[in-house]
């Protein structure tokens, strides 16, 4: 008897969902990111208005001054949906865990000198509270924002901030031999140390900023754009040798994360700014106000972290940020001879 093995080629009737097909120009295979993002948020047929804001719909475009013809233009260049996001972070977590184990085994942080340990408590530990604030702000953008393209990466960013706060906590626990005393000392510094009060006050101002796109810009572009280079580049470079480079190793995630996340933040701002001159103008206005206020608030922290060179370093970081937003279609400086 002879057995013939035949292959039969079964073609799917449709390559993707109709809503995705309409967006990508025809019925062709779509990426998981596209299928898990486009049109996920309900847009019509809301039955009831929210009791906490009866003049608006549950999802409402009018919660920000920014206007977009299509909110799904604000795509994430990293193509993060749940699957890719969790796999990427799990991989990074594995690497970071190994760094933490290494530093603990060699007691690198614990054996560094008194001045360095004190500096870590005063400069790095209070950042746990900064990260929590940033978590709240990204949660807010996710809750009140419009369209899954922008709200989805915000909740990922919010989770990242908790992760970063945990890395800082673990660093503190290595510092005080799992006593937790450096964490409480860090909280005390956040609440009482004069150098932190500007940052804390601005964080609280962000908590009551109503326009979600303004909050997105203030937190993710400006606040992070100033704090991250200041702390995770300049400050860590300064103290890392005294800790046997443990400080550099244990904050590697933060450095990588900021570079990666900046791509998404930049793409979002750039797309919104190129949508219309009105958007670009509004974003520019917000940028200038927040940059000036936040830079002023961070200055005492820069001095605490870097001593007398802090002010100059912050000025350089601020100038770099101006260049960065210039590429996004915002005008960082007032034109005619006036100083920004």
């Amino acid at each position: 008897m002879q057995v013939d093995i035949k292959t039969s080629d079964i073609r799917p009737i449709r390559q993707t969902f109709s809503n995705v097909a309409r967006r990508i120009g025809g019925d062709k295979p779509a990426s998981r990111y596209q299928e898990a993002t486009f049109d996920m948020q309900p847009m019509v047929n809301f039955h009831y208005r929210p009791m906490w804001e009866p003049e608006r719909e549950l999802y409402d475009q009018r919660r920000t001054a920014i206007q977009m013809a299509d909110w799904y233009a604000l795509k994430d260049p990293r193509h993060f949906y749940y699957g890719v996001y969790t796999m990427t972070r799990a991989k990074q977590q594995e690497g970071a865990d190994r760094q933490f184990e290494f530093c603990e085994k060699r007691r690198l942080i614990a054996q560094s000198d008194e001045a360095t340990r004190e500096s870590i408590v005063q400069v790095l530990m209070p950042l746990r509270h900064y990260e929590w604030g940033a978590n709240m702000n990204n949660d807010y953008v996710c809750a009140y924002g419009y369209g899954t393209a922008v709200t989805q990466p915000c909740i990922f960013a919010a989770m990242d901030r908790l992760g970063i706060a945990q890395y800082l906590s673990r660093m503190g626990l290595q510092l005080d031999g799992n006593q937790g005393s450096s964490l409480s000392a860090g909280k005390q510094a956040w609440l009482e140390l004069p150098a932190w009060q500007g940052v804390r006050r601005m964080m609280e101002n962000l908590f009551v900023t109503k326009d979600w796109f303004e909050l997105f810009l203030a937190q993710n572009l400006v606040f992070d754009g100033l704090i991250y280079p200041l702390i995770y580049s300049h400050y860590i470079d300064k103290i890392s040798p005294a800790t046997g480079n443990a400080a550099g190793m244990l904050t590697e995630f933060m450095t990588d994360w900021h570079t990666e996340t900046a791509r998404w933040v930049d793409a979002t701002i750039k797309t919104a700014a190129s949508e219309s001159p009105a958007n670009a103008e509004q974003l520019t206005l917000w940028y200038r106000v927040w940059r000036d206020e936040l830079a002023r608030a961070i200055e005492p922290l820069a001095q605490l972290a870097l001593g007398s060179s802090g002010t100059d370093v912050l000025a350089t970081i601020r100038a770099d940020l101006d260049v960065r937003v210039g590429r996004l279609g915002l005008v960082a400086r007032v034109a005619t001879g006036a100083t920004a």
Partner: protein
Amino acid sequence: MSAVTARPAQPVFIALQLNDLTRSLVEAIVADNPHATVVDYPAMVKIEALGRLVIRRESVEALIGRDWDIQELHLSLISLSGSIDETDDEFCLHWG
């Protein structure tokens, strides 16, 4: 004995499992090799080209939005023909 003459270019091919990443790979390959033809099979895609076929890391990265190690290609690779010339930036199939 006859002189060595230039042979007509022979086709090279690469066959990949069809998955989410491969779709971007195929898109990148077709963009970089306009002379390539794509043949779909069940759960597989075969790309043929006369003479030379190149996969560029940069083109793939631009499409998938993350860093991509060209060695990741092997995770979806079913079969290929041609001499292989690989660097960190390019994976090239050719005859000759």
